[in-house]
């Protein structure tokens, strides 16, 4: 296949498989913690950081990291006001940040790269980009492995978790930090908007198909990598945008999983909002 002969495509393929596997595993936890909203928000809120990095010619990774940190700090501060509530705090912060990013990006003096920031540039993956994605992906995977039991206790039983030696607040914060790392890793290849598809879709499919927690994580990782592969091949064959093809492939795999295993009736006592139900299937 032609895809294996071009160095450009080889790098893109490696990048997207790494990202797919990482985001898939992380996504399972985010869906179980019900942090899909936080995931989306954090990804979007880094836009000003990306734009500023583009403006001053700094690496995107640096801008993304700065943007995430500022956004996370703003959300944490805003959410402290109990009258406002966490969701409103996130909504306000993210909309502000996204708007600010757009204003900066559309200013006449700025080179027109907004599209790339939002949708990534998979085929533009350089070797340093690839190394960075691999390192960040390994970091996320290691952290998830090391924290597996703590995450399990914190998600399953946050009330009793402290008496089991686990601090659920810290664990959720750590999970959001890992999300920030994953989004930073993915922004070059998939962009600020499309990265969400790789975090949510393979994880939703994995949760549908897997019986055990480990099974779900392995499946989600595999499906994420597969979505990357299929999307990239489709984009090369059909000559369509790479990042978008990957996102669509991930969604298509989820739809197949949902058809193969329709949603089980919810066990009594589990409450989900309609938005969550849509998000996690």
């Amino acid at each position, binding site marked *: 296949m032609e895809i294996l002969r071009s160095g450009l495509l080889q790098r893109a393929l490696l990048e997207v498989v790494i990202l797919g596997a990482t985001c898939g595993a992380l996504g399972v936890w985010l869906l179980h913690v019900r942090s899909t909203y936080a995931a989306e928000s954090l990804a979007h809120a880094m836009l000003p950081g990306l734009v500023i990095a583009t403006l001053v010619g700094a690496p995107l990774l640096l801008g993304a990291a700065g943007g995430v940190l500022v956004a996370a700090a703003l959300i944490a501060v805003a959410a402290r006001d109990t009258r406002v509530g966490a969701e409103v705090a996130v909504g306000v912060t993210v909309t502000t940040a996204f708007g600010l990013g757009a204003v900066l990006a559309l200013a006449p003096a700025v080179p027109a790269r907004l599209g790339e920031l939002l949708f990534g540039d998979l085929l533009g993956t350089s070797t340093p980009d690839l190394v960075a994605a691999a390192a960040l992906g390994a970091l996320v995977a290691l952290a998830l492995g090391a924290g597996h*039991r703590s995450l399990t*206790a914190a998600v399953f039983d946050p009330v009793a978790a402290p008496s*089991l030696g686990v601090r659920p607040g810290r664990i959720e914060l750590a999970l959001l930090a890992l999300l920030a790392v994953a989004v930073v890793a993915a922004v070059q290849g998939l962009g600020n908007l499309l990265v969400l598809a790789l975090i949510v879709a393979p994880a939703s499919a994995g949760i549908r198909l897997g019986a055990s927690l480990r099974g779900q994580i392995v499946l989600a990782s595999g499906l994420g990598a597969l979505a990357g592969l299929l999307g990239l091949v489709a984009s090369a064959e059909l000559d369509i945008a790479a990042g978008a093809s990957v996102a669509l492939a991930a969604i298509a795999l989820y739809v197949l999983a949902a058809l193969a295993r329709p949603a089980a009736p919810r*066990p009594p006592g*589990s409450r989900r909002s309609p938005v969550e139900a849509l998000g996690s299937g």
Partner: protein
Amino acid sequence: MSAAIEVAGLSATYGPGAIALCDVTFTATEGQAVAVLGPNGGGKTTLFRALLGELPATTGSVSVRGATAYVPQTERSRLDFPVSALDVALMGAYARTPWYRRIGAGDRALAREALQRVGLADRASERFGALSGGQRQRVLIARALVQDAGVLLLDEPFAGVDRTSEEAIMRILDELRAEGRVLLIATHDVDQARRWDRVLCLRGSQVAFGPPAETLTNAVLEGTYGEEIVVLDCGHRAVAVQHHAHSHSHSHSH
């Protein structure tokens, strides 16, 4: 096992301006079960958190001898989370297993033993959320056994539990008592409270503490529940608590 709880003049709060619980004084010695009776918001959970060391005492002192386990209401845990009964029992070994180690064979055997004790050996690989309310409660008690807890804090262990499971849980709790463990059993069911060695009545502050027969007088119950109480006229009293997830009223016609 020499477990014991000693609480003297305890006040604890979640934050400035919000006194959650004050003036609690009681003791529980080896092998005693204490019912903690009170309305929702009466301070049962606050007391448990103070005993677990998660909430510092603003005044007074708390001393707990023996490892302490919290047994939550099963409805509070995530029922759609893919963990088996054995997985949940194994959580009792988390605190003593470093993150870089697998859970040891000894602890796995302990978890299976604990499930056996609560009569669920054959359901070990079943998903926790697929078990009945009473079975889930027993799995959570098994987890406390794996923690090797001398002190068990049980939050409404009989809420939403069918008659058979209730009897099974009663039997297990009696066994644990016989082994010298200390049990605190939060409940808003007066009849339930009568079964145990001591009863502690809470409504923001301590209303009464002592053996149930002497303690559970009409005056104490009215002090504990205020207008929420319905006193029936046949020697039995019934409590109807409003605004609760498992609110139920008992009526007795004998």
